[in-house]
């Protein structure tokens, strides 16, 4: 029973977090001077009556307090408002369209960053050469400075322009007869046993997922290296050694102890991942929430921007909830 209660309480805590961000964005977008409709239209030459009609259509003529709560109530019903630029288009359906693409990119990026980060950290712990250790440690601290568009475009230059082996953007070559189910294309292709589509989707994924994965892999390098070194000097390893277990096998034992901090950290990485996803998507024309947000930014579509922020806030809240619960399950020391 304890765990269920813990999860419930922890889940309730997402609500104030989301509310704070909603309030912040609402204040920023609505209360600041300037008429949002004029900004979205990009012109001031519009008859007064037409402007008023537009405002009332979008509900912008109501008092701010009423707008604030109405939007909130509608949101809980799954109504995220209508686009200000593409008249009458419900934002919720746009987001449902785009979310799986971002999710797929994020999952693969985490996978890449685990492979790169844990891999290099493991090598750093295993190799006795102090220079290798220093390089891994330094890389772990500064790899985040790689500006995603700069790396992404350079990779496009090499793999698309010079080698011609990978596409520059998009998620799938259009010519294939392929029906999305979940919207996560690699998963859908596997479910339909469409190997050709799977590899095609993978080809589109490699560059963006590698770019994003590399940039966020730093903490994994340091985490793996430091924890493994710490454990190799600990009593547990001494005990193993006393039993005559060879050093190469000891590393495997030590590695198992590193998995707990890595799991925890993956949750903390999520907000970094989401920010990076926006840039990665723009660089690779990946049709996810990030590209959607940037599109809306270009057109100053305030209602859509507001909805995207709330969605991101919910995603961040949910991930930290999942991580906390996982952590409570893995580590018996955590009391709930």
């Amino acid at each position, binding site marked *: 029973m304890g765990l269920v209660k813990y999860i419930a309480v922890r889940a309730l805590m997402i609500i104030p977090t989301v509310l704070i961000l909603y309030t*912040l964005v609402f204040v920023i977008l609505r209360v600041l001077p300037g008429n949002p409709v004029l900004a979205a239209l990009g012109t001031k030459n519009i008859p007064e009556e037409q402007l008023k009609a537009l405002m009332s259509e979008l509900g912008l003529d109501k008092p701010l307090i009423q707008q604030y709560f109405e939007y909130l109530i509608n949101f809980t019903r799954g109504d995220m408002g209508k686009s200000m630029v593409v008249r009458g288009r419900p934002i919720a359906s746009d987001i449902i369209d785009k979310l799986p693409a971002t999710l797929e990119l994020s999952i693969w990026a985490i996978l890449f960053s685990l492979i790169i980060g844990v891999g290099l950290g493991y090598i750093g712990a295993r190799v006795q050469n102090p220079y290798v250790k220093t390089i891994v440690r330094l890389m772990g601290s*500064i790899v985040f400075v790689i500006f995603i*568009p700069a790396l992404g475009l350079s990779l496009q*230059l090499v793999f698309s322009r010079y080698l011609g082996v990978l596409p520059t953007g998009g998620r799938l070559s259009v010519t294939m007869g392929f029906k999305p189910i979940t919207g996560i294309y690699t998963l859908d292709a596997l479910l339909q046993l469409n190997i050709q589509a799977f590899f095609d989707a993978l080809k589109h994924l490699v560059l963006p997922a590698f770019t994003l994965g590399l940039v966020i892999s730093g903490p994994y390098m340091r985490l793996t290296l430091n924890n493994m070194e710490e454990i190799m000097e600990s009593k547990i390893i001494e005990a193993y050694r006393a039993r005559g277990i060879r050093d190469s096998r000891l590393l495997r034992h030590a590695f198992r102890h590193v998995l707990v901090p890595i799991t925890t950290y993956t949750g903390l990485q999520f*907000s970094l991942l989401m920010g990076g996803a926006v840039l990665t998507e723009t660089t690779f024309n990946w049709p996810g929430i990030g590209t959607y947000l940037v599109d809306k930014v270009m057109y*100053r579509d305030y209602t859509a921007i507001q909805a995207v922020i709330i969605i991101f806030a919910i995603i961040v809240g949910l991930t930290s909830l999942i991580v906390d619960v996982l952590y409570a399950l893995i580590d018996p020391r955590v009391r709930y």
Partner: protein
Amino acid sequence: MMSLNSSSIYIAFKNRYVLTGLIIILIFVFMAVFADFIAPYSPVEYVGPPLQPPSREYIMGTDNLGRDIFSRIVYGSRIMLTIVAIAVAISGAVGTILGLISGYIGGILDRLLSFTMDSIYAFPSLILAISLSVALGPSPINAAIAIALVYIPTYFRMIRGQVLSIKNETYIEIARALGLPSTRIVLRHILPHVTKTLMVVFSMNSADAILTEAALSFMGLTVQPPTPDWGFDLYKGRGFVLAGMWWIMLFPGLCIILLAVGFALISEGISTLITTRKR
């Protein structure tokens, strides 16, 4: 925990990470200050045939409008450094002051502030910065404000945590028992003890701010053309990648990364100094 004094500054300078980082940053600052003398051409005017690869005449080539890319890089450092300096100064000052107050006073105010700051901190900073810049309207000063607001929690959380751990030390209790005013205790007896950690956060945050500025520029949220700006120039170079014209996007991209590396190295250097000295 030691306060910042001349000998610790000397030790920091001897650290090779700190030194390398400082040299990188100083080169860019030098470039920004003496741009008029360093840049061979005007950054905004047609100075040669368009889309020329790097040559002796145009060492980083020319863009699609026949402008010299090296000159644009040199002048572009001004916009970048100005925005980042303003942003980091504001967020550092506001975050530190709020952190000191919140941590020292405690109570309901502390709980409210902490919860708000934690919520903002947990949220992807780039996404928040984008929304803020849109709301404020695209301009360099608004971009600086947007970046500043986004990073206030970074300083707040660190300072507040440090204050909480120092607050119950005996010497603070004595100061309080002596009846010293709170402002004096906070400024004279607590603040000096957080300066080192503040330096680490400050340089790390500067690196973050550079990347955020570049990202905002990349989305067209800072300068208006033809103002030279690394992030925006990188964005324009994007269209020429498939034509094999790498120089338009590569040089601005490298400068963004290099400048951020400078600050990251300083942060790494100072934090290793702090941890090794504690041992």
